[in-house]
């Protein structure tokens, strides 16, 4: 059995989830706690990756990060290729999964009593410190739920990845793409085996994460 798709999927989904956390948490916090022009619009727009058909979303992304695209050209100038590399798979997984994290984290932040934050403020805490020691710990359960959803979505992404990363064996062929490829070639035993591996890998990982998350909060 070719182990490459499994290693690639692990690498892509973990990197994408990290990226989703880094970009999604500040955005979710801003949507929950700050009022700025266009907040409602942004609030609605962040779920759009869930609404569009994945291959269509993938095509738009390809137009942006392909060698002819505005973002792709900037990166090419820095001699970094995005489209059809593992980086494209990360971007695809990130785009598909970020709405799930944002919505969950936003609900978590919304559920934190503002008076607790105000109490911390009266005690002279900085906003930064309040975020880390009050808001984030209280919203933690929702955030972990969001991370789990985002990770699973990132791990399982098919349509967006297929379009922007291609399904290049040994290079950008993630586990879902490899499974599909086996089905295409009428190799059902291999497809079944890889599907089983995908499910087991994610279940084991999530069991581990849920333990880790429960340790502290």
């Amino acid at each position, binding site marked *: 059995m070719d182990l490459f798709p499994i290693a690639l999927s692990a690498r892509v989904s973990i*990197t994408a989830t990290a990226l989703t956390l880094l970009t999604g948490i500040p955005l979710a916090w801003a949507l929950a706690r700050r009022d700025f022009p266009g907040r409602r619009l942004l609030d609605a727009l962040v779920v759009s990756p869930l609404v569009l058909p994945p*291959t269509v979303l993938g095509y738009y992304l*390809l137009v942006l990060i392909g060698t*002819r*695209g505005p973002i792709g050209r900037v990166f090419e100038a820095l001699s970094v290729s995005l489209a059809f590399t593992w980086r494209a798979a990360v971007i695809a997984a990130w785009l598909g999964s970020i709405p799930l994290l944002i919505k969950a984290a936003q609900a978590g932040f919304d559920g934190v009593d503002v008076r607790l934050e105000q109490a911390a403020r009266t005690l002279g805490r900085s906003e930064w410190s309040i975020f880390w020691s009050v808001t984030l710990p209280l919203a933690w359960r929702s955030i972990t739920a969001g991370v789990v959803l985002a990770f699973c979505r990132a791990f399982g992404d098919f349509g967006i990845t297929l*379009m922007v990363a291609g399904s*290049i*064996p*040994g290079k950008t062929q993630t586990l879902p793409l490899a499974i599909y490829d086996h089905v295409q070639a009428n190799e059902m035993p291999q497809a079944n085996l890889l599907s089983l591996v995908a499910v087991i890998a994610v279940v084991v990982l999530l069991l581990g994460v849920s333990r880790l998350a429960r340790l502290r909060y």
Partner: protein
Amino acid sequence: MLRRLVILAALLGSLSLLVSAQVAEVAVFGASDLALAFKEIVPKFERALGVKVTLVLGSTGTLAKQIEHGAPADVFFAADRTFIEELAVKGVVIPETRALYAQGRLVLATARSAGAKLTELRQLTDARIRHIAIANPAHAPYGRAAEQALRAVGVWDPVRAKLVYGENIRQALQFVESGAAEAGLIALSLANVPAIDYVVIDRTLHAPLNQSVAVVRRSRRPELGLAFIQFVNGAEGRPIMKRFGFLLPGEF
């Protein structure tokens, strides 16, 4: 809290650094109807020339878009020559390397589980046939041919309500293979599977499914792409393509 997250981030970062060796090789992009035939041709080519082939199969339309936007293909085998012509006009493929490599054949397939084995298109009006799978005629070459054939024998209107469209020809086959559709019009090159019976459809009933190939201009190894085209169209490739039901250049 912050420390915990930093440790977590570092852990994630180091995990993501699990790098993989990447070897230079010739990348062949091909239409999904080539799946079975190329599975035999590629290893032969690799042995003959001592190179590694990366085979990427997909729907011709998707692959064409990807190549246009910089996908690292060296050579592109389309299921329909119009895609190669368009890419040539756009300067994406090298016009001088264009070649016809096969003509696809359409078959009338019946799911064994459906009971009735159909032998001609008119029988599709039979009440026992409730779903007929074809590839989407709006963009899939085999779907277009299926529509033309059904119109040619005058059953398009009566069977229209029974049609189910697959995204590509491989999906249409899966509808029949699984028994979800009792019958379907699919590619001969993929039809040799246990769950279905099939008869070849008269090719004068639809416009020819001419499939052509070209070397991609961005290719860094155009000579290898060209060598692969010659291999498929040569003494080694032709018998295999023929066995999977393709008509070959010079024979139609």
